[in-house]
Every structure is written in C-alpha cells, then in structure tokens.
C-alpha cells in the first residue's frame, strides 16, 4: 500500500473532501443526464437530511448505526484484521439483547431489564466476532472468509429462531412479541420536550449518546491503553509483537471480540430504540456500510463520526430525493451512495499522487523563494 507524505491536515481533511466532491460531481452528471437539475436535487437532499421537521433526527438516527458498525471495522483494522462480519455480529447482538429482554421483562422492572440487555448485545456480538478470530488465530482460516460465512450463519439462525421458537404466538410475521412497556431506550424528542426544548418527532434515541461514548472509549482504547498499543503493533508487525513478549494470536482474538461487541451494540439503536421487539433483517446492510464508514473515517473515531453523519444524511436525504422526483428512484439513491463508497473507499488514494505533486511543488517554490536552493 502506498503511504502518503502529505501533512496530516491534507491527508485526513482535504483528501476525503476531494473524494466526496468527486463522487457528487459524477452523481450530478448522471442526474443531469436523466434530465433533472443536479443542483436542485442536491438542495432537496440537503433539506431532506437537515432542514425539514425531524429530518436531522432521522439523519442522526441512521448515523448511530454507522458509528457502531464503523467503530467495529476500525478496531479490527488497527490489528490489520478485515472484519466483514458486522452484519452478522449486529444481528446476534439483537438476538442476545432480545433473549434477555424476553426472558426477564415479566419478572424484573423495565430499567433493570434494559441495563441487563445492553451488555448482552455486546456479549453476543463479541462471541460472533471471537469465533472467526479464534479460527484465524489458531487455525489460520482467513478472517475475511470466516466473517462473511458467519453473516450467513447469523442470518439463518435469526430466520430459524424468529420464524420458530421465538415467533410471537398468533401472528404470521417472523418477529418476537413486543417487549414489556418501558423496555427500550428513551427517544430524544421525548427527553428534550420533557425539559422544555421543542424537538420534532424522530426515532433518534439514547443509543446516539451511547455511540458517542463508544467512540470516545475506542479512542481511549486504541491510543491510551497498553492493549491498544499492542493491537496497533500487531497490525503493523506481528514479529515485533512476538519480540515484545505478547502472543499475536491472543491479541487477534481479543480484538475480534471487541470489534464484534461494537457491532453488536448497533442492535441498541434499532431494537431497543425503535422496534422494542426482535425483527428479521433489522441490520439491513449497516454492517457492510460500516466498512465504507471506517475507510472514509480513516479508522479514527472522529473521522468515523463525521463519515457516519455523511452516510446518515445520504440515507435520509436520499429517501427525500426518491420522494420528490419522479425520475429519481430508490436505486438512483443507492447509486449515489455507491459512488461515495467507491470514491472514498475503494479509490480513497486515487487523488493522492496528484495532491502530493502539487504539495511538493508548492513547498519547493517556497524554498526557492526563500533562496536556500
């Protein structure tokens, strides 16, 4: 992989902006080609994501999912592990959470059930990350393959349970019964309205705060703890980790468990925050989009929060586009998201050489001007 010699602000600030701009330009050209005005479309999208009543709430709600799955990918990536299994880990997180809620809500007060259910989401996600981690560390099965496989296994397990023993009695859709009243996370507009700040109705809930807390925790873990130091060292050089006296296998398993736990927490937002029952396919691709979020956010929590906001806005504003324009369909919106992922993920370093050349030209010109050539 090519490493950049650009200053940090260009590498983590300017480059992603250029990438997003490029994606929007290409998307704009396509929108113009189907006969719509790309600028009008952009305005509709921005309004849909931020301005309309409740829009911001929806944007942040989606962003919450992306923060969790993005963090999951990032933590694993610091150990050079490519965790593609966020989707399955999130699904299992939802299952763990649901099992606790369904088992305990008849007997325990709601807040206690919630307090017990939240860690369960992390634990189930962690286990679903740990198994591929173990297979990688002890058996050499490649983590990319195993995590993908575990997505399928998780999906099948969910179908089997939700259409089987967990299915609510007396109905036809594959989902559990609703949790008892109060077993859920408070929605933000309820909290804000209660303290006298008016806020439009949206599914945004306390999970968003937990996601921000998780981002801070990940930052602390990676850059302020010994474990994080060793995780990063494992990512760069396993031999150096062995030399330092640690077992890379152990670190791989620990990292995958942490990664899986973060993905599992995504279930808080969808299950505890909104559905208050376990439904099928609630992960709807957020686990995969988390890969793009982490790539774009350069595996740093701050970058991941910003990238999550962008993707949240795309989700929400994209829905608005679909609604406003006859010609722009849901698929068109998916294409725009695809372009962003393409430019800021797969082609993240495409503009790097150009930028580097320009930068060095400027630096040289300055040096020449100072006369030390």
């Amino acid at each position: 992989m090519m490493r950049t010699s650009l200053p940090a602000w260009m590498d983590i600030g300017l480059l992603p902006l250029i990438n997003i701009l490029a994606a929007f330009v290409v998307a704009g050209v396509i929108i113009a080609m189907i006969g719509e005005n790309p600028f009008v479309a952009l305005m509709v999208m921005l309004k849909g994501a931020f301005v309309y009543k409740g829009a911001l709430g929806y944007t942040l709600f989606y962003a919450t999912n992306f923060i969790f799955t993005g963090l999951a990918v990032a933590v694993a990536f610091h150990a050079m592990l490519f965790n593609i299994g966020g989707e399955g880990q999130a699904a299992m997180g939802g299952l763990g959470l649901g099992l606790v809620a369904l088992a305990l809500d008849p007997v325990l007060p709601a807040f206690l059930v919630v307090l017990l259910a939240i860690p369960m989401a992390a634990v189930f996600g962690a286990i679903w990350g740990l198994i591929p981690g173990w297979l990688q560390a002890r058996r050499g099965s490649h983590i990319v393959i195993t995590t993908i496989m575990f997505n399928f296994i998780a999906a099948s397990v969910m179908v089997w349970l939700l259409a089987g023993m967990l299915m609510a009695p007396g109905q036809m859709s594959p989902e559990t019964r609703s949790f008892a009243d109060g077993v859920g996370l408070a929605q933000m507009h309820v909290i804000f309205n209660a303290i006298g700040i008016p806020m439009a109705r949206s599914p945004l809930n306390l999970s968003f705060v937990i996601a921000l807390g998780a981002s801070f925790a990940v930052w602390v873990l990676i850059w302020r703890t010994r474990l994080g130091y060793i995780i990063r060292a494992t990512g760069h050089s396993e031999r150096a980790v062995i030399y330092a006296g640690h077992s890379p296998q152990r670190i791989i398993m620990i990292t995958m468990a942490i990664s899986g736990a973060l993905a599992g927490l995504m279930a808080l937002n969808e299950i505890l925050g909104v559905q208050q029952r376990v439904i099928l396919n609630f992960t709807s691709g957020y686990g995969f989009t988390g890969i793009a979020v982490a790539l774009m956010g350069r595996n740093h929590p701050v970058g991941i929060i910003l990238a999550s906001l962008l993707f949240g806005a795309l989700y929400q504003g994209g829905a608005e586009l679909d609604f406003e324009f006859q010609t722009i369909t849901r698929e068109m919106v998916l294409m725009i998201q695809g372009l962003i992922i393409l430019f800021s993920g797969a082609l993240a370093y495409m503009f790097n050489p150009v930028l580097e050349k320009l930068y060095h030209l400027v630096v040289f010109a300055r040096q020449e001007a100072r006369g030390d050539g």
Partner: protein
Amino acid sequence: MTSAAGVAEMPAAISLSGICKTFGAVRANQDISLEIQAGSIHGIVGENGAGKSTLVSILYGFYTADSGSIQVFGEDISIGSTAEAISAGIGMVHQHFMLVPTFTVLENIILGSEGSGGLQRSMARAREEITRLASTYGLTVDLDAIVSDLPVGVQQRVEILKALYRGARILILDEPTGVLTPQETDQLFEILRSLKEQGVTVLFITHKLREIMAVTDQVSVMRGGEMVAHRNISATSPAELAELMVGRPVLIEGIWHEASPGNTVLAAERLGLDGGGAPLIDEVSFEVRAGEILGIAGVSGNGQSELLELLAGIRVPTRGQITINGHSISPDQPASPSMIRSLGVAHVPEDRHAMGLVLPFSAAESAALGYEHTPEIGDGFWFDPARLNARCSRLMADFDVRPPDPALKSSLFSGGNQQKIVLAREISAKPGLLLVGQPTRGVDIGAIEFIHRQLIGLRDQGCAIVLVSVELDEILSLSDRIMVMNGGQSMGIIDRGRADARSVGLLMAGVA
C-alpha cells in the same frame, strides 16, 4: 572532478555529467559527474543513503535521471529501461540474486534471451557459448547443476556469467560480498581481476573500505547524494576514504581493550532446534560470563539468527538447555520473551525493521516496545503518550539520536538512528545479558563507531554480551571470544588472541 587526461586515446567506458534525481523532497543524486576508464575496476563507496543505489539504478535503467547526460564508450545514450542498458553493454549483478532456484545453471543463464524456435537447439548453442565464456574468464560452473544446490559464491558466478552472456562489457556489482565468506570474497576478487585483464570494465559498489582498497583501481566517494571525491587507490588510504564518506575524521580501530570477565551469566548446553529438514541448530554449547563479549561468526543463514531467537525466547529449543542467571529453560520448561526479559536480558534483534521497531509507530512508541508494562511507561493498563515522549527524549539525548524528535515516525529515521533507538531502549533497561544481532547492518560509519563504543562500555559495566554479526570485521574487533557457526553447528570457540580473518574464515566455510 577528475578529467582523466592521461588516457585520452581511449574513451571512458562510462561518462556521466550533471546527473540529478529527486524523489519527492529527497534529492537522491545531485549533479553527479563521473568518468570510469575502460578496462578498470572502479569502486563507488558511500554510506547508506548516500545515493549509490540510485546512481546505479539510473545506469541500469530502473530509474530515469531528471537531468544530466550519460555516455557509454563515447556515445551519448539515454537509458530508459534495463533492456536499453543491456544493449548498451551494461550488465548488473544484484545484491540479492535474481535466479530461479529450481532451474539449472544453463536455464538460468539463458532466461530472458532464449532466442526463438526450439529450446533444445538454442540451449545447445548457448551451452557452447557459455562454456567458451566460462573458460575465458575463469568462471568454472557446472552448467547442469540445479542453482539451489550451489553455494552462494557459485551462484554469484552464475549471475556474472549471465551478464557476460548478454554481451556486457561493463559489469556493475552492487554490494557483492555481503553474502560471501572471506574465502569466497577472495575468489570473487580473482574473478574481477581476470575480467579486467580481458577488457571488461567493472563498477564495484560497496560500503566496505577494505574491499575498495583490495580490488579497485579508482574510487569515487559519495555523500548525501553528491560525488565528493575521486581518488586513485594508490594515492589514498582507508582513513582518508572514511573521512570523505562521513565528512569528519573517524576512528575505525582501537575501541576494544582487555575485558575482566566475572561469573557465568548464560550457559547453553547441547542446544538443538529442528526446522523442516536438517536441524537448524545442532548440539551447540557455550558459556558467556559477565563483562565479556562472545561473538558469533558465520555466513548468513548458518543458524546464528535462530540461536539468537532461542536465547531471546522467541523460539523454543527442541533439545538441550539454556541457563540464564541460574534460571533454566528447556523444551519442557520454555520461557516467553517477556519472561526472559524479566531475567535481565535485553535483545537487539537482527531485523530491526520487522522486530526491533514498529516502523509506522512514532519513535516514542517504538522505544516502548517490550517495556510497555514497566513502571517508567505506564501502570500496565493505561498508556501515557506524554510520559512516553519524555522518556524517549531522554533516550534520544543519551544516544545522540537525530533528529531528536520523539513524535517522528520510526521509519523516517536513518538506519543508524533507528538502531540507536533500539539500542537506547535495550541498554537503558540495564541488562545483565545483552543479545545483539547485526548491530551495525545498514548503519553509517559514524554511527558504527558510536554503537561499538556503547557495546564495549556496557561490557565494561559487567554486562554479558552475545554478539551475532555477519560482518567478520565487527566480530573480530569487538569480541573477547568467538564462536563460529556452520550448518547449525558450533565449529569451535576461539580466544580473541588466536583469531584472525583467515582462521575464522576457514571455520565459517566449514573447514575445521
């Protein structure tokens, strides 16, 4: 700049003028001018990063110069690819051989110039031609031997034959002696002299002054991307060349003085380590006492690296026993690297890029590797960059690391300064036993002197040192006793007084 006035009737084999090459912000070659007389052996000497490799790469068509002109035998040419270099009569023997190990010598030599039509016919023709070349230049090789079965020195001959077969009249050798025993080096020099007698021009790139003095006619010195001097060998000395390379006077010899060894710190008894086929280490026994340096000599790949990793706990012995400060380690009682470190053992690993440092880490982070749990750095859970940086700054001041910037990425330091970071980290742990592998590999002369002084100084404070190096000069100049390894076995331990390049070299070659 020399003008080579005396040999005006014959054009120079290579004549460079004003060659410049920059990589990003790095000026690797600045205004290089050089004349190489036809039929001479011309050395280019310089420290790592002086721009030798860049210059050679430009000559052989790997890079294109930003500006400047190249003349070969009086003709202006541009070399845009290796194919163009070959057709201009330039051949190259790389530091790391470019041979297919499972092919025969003949197959390797014709690879890339097989000719058209049936392979059998062109092979027969090639065999004739190569046999003729081999006898002309005294390069005896069995053409039907499989390359991987041949000793390294012979493989190098295959590389030379390969270049000659392609019609090379100018032969570039890039650090050719790094993998050779002293005897093989002498044989290589014989070959180079006979090439010269036959009119071949040799360009010899090295950082070893002894070799420059032994085999070349002229030498050019590079420093910091510039050509700083040209000398006739008869009119210069190693000391002058060293000074030109570094830019200041350097003391090469005379750091060692008599040791006063104490108790035995490390004892190895009949150590063995099995690899895939033959044992990597077999029946190796030795002792090291406090306040002495045991040098382990050997041609690269004869078990020294594995031995060092066994002692450091990175590998577990298959047989035998290691005793460190009374604590024994055996196949049944293995010890991890951190346990061994807690016995007061420090380890400067051979491969500082993969093991000694984490290249993308800041210097401060790299300087904590293996010591993350020590009170100086953190309490075992938290990790405090401020304390880390402060500690690294101290180490950098003590060991003269440049630039003294703890936040700079480890990969951006020069080889010598990287090694100083590793040494500083390990020596500051105040070890009772120091394991050192290749302490000066890829390190410039100025830093070599510093590192050698540190090692002797540590020895004088009573530290036992095991020194593994493929640089025989280094072993000879630092060690109190020398163990020679060949094929995973100890060929014997010699006292300093009785060791010289010849006696050790014979043992290295496996001639007991």
